[in-house]
Structures are given as C-alpha cells and as structure tokens.
C-alpha cells in the first residue's frame, strides 16, 4: 500500500512539474502562416523552421506593424506575423502583421 502511494506521488509530482514547466512566460514568435482554419486559428512556420498551431480567442488583438487596427480576416496564408503567445503556450494574446498596403 505504501509503495502504491509513493509511486502515485512520484507520478503526480512528475506530471505537475511537466504541466507547470516554463509557466509564467509570455513568448513572441515570428513566422509565416501556412494554413488558416475557419475559426481564425492557424499553423505558423516559425523562423527556426519548426511549426506550431496558434489558437485565437475573442480577446486576441490584431494589429498591423504600423500600429493600424487589423482584422482576423486580414490574415492570409503566407502572411508574416509576430504572435505573442500566452502562458498556455498556444493561445495568441496579440497578432501583429505586416503593414497594410495603401
């Protein structure tokens, strides 16, 4: 019984350590959009060649690099973006994209 409890505690510790690893950091990623979903989320090919799926929410803000307001519909496959990702490692707090063409 004691052994089972000890193993359970070790597993619990391991899982929580993994879950909270790197918590508290907000990262920004530069990259190019390779695929776009209907809900606005997209696949980002980062500048280091790796890819990540970026989720968006109602509170995600969109901006052009020159500070003008942008809309989710301004994102296209091939757009260069800088996504500031929240602590969960996948949800975008803000997405900055290339300046709007005049």
């Amino acid at each position, binding site marked *: 019984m004691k052994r089972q409890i000890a193993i359970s505690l070790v597993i619990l510790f391991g899982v929580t350590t993994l879950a909270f690893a790197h918590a508290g950091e907000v*990262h920004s990623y530069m990259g190019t959009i390779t695929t776009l979903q209907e809900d606005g989320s997209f696949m980002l090919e980062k*500048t*280091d060649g790796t890819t990540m799926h970026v989720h968006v929410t109602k509170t995600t803000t969109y*901006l052009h*690099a020159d500070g003008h307001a942008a809309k989710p519909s301004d994102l296209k496959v091939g757009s*260069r973006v800088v996504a500031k990702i929240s602590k969960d490692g996948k949800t975008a707090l803000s997405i900055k994209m290339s300046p709007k063409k005049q």
Partner: protein
Amino acid sequence: MSTRAKAILAAVAVGVLVAISAFASMIRRGFSAHEEPSYIEATMARTMRHWAVPADLRSEVNPVRLTPEVRAEARSHFADHCAGCHGNDGKGGGMGRQMYPKAPDMSLPATQSLSDGTLFSIIENGIRLTGMPGFGAGTAESAYGSWTLVHFIRHLPELTPQEIAEMETLNPKSPAEWQQMQEEQAFLAGGDEAPRAPRAAPHQH
C-alpha cells in the same frame, strides 16, 4: 462582584485570548506580499488615503483642457513612467502585480469614481506604505504632467489595442528588448530574419 460584571470580565478575557491566539498564529505563519489585504486593512488604507489628500484638492476639477494632443502626450508619459507598475492598460499587469497592496485595475469604478483632485494628489504625493511613489516636484511643469495623466486615467476604460501597441513602443526597454523589437519590425516589413529560438516577450519595467 456581580454576576453581570463577572460575565463581562469573562467575555473580555475570552476576547483577549482569541486576539493573542490569532496574533501568535499570524506571527508563526509569517507575512507575505503575495496575499490580498484583508477587509480591515483595505478599509483602513482607503480611509488613510482619503485623509492624505489635501481638503482643498479633493473637489478640484482638472484645469487642463483635454485635447487629442494632451491625451497623446499623457499616453506617452504613462507608457514611459507608469506602465512599469500599472501596465499600459492600467489594469495592474506590470510590476505592481507583485506589490502589497497590488496596483489596482484603474479602469474599474474604484479608481474611476475618485475625483480629479484625488487622482492628481495621488500622482503628485504618492500613497504611504504602498508602492505608489510621489512624482510631484512642486513645479508647474510637474503639476501639468500630473493633470494630463488624470485625463489619461479617465480614458483607460476606452483604451484601444492600437493605443496599447503604440505604448509598447514607448515603454522603457533593455538593449535586448530593443533588438527584438527591431528584428520583429524588420521581419514584418519583409526583411530576412535569421532563425532564432523563441524568447520571452519583453518584460515591462
């Protein structure tokens, strides 16, 4: 001694014992700035803050006329001097999150309901026993800056993402943060970007 006097004495003794016990428990547990102030502390602090505002200032109305230029000036001022603790949006997302008491969300009624003069006094004189310093220099220039900040604080509930983005470019930055911002701008403008590992977004100091 009458029965009533004995009862009162016993009640006082119990009260004293409870107070000593609570105090001993607090001392043993220690104090942390991570906690939220208790209701009593918050009430006392707000009362002290109210008393700290000079009486003739409490009802004063902002003498600086609000124009788009004044608001832009105040926005830059806030981004440079205040956002480190209060966050660009004034919601207390900066270093103020670690303070005791925490920097408040100034877009909420608790701050918005304060008079112009009270906000001005807080900016100029600070609040004792909190992280809020007094920024006033006793000059007309300092007073003008503080009054413009009062206008900006009033604007916080309607702050737009564009304004926040502009403020981010004005926040004090380390050389590494400047470099990152320039790399991102160059990348978005279509320039080449050498592959690099992800890094933390600039901290706001």
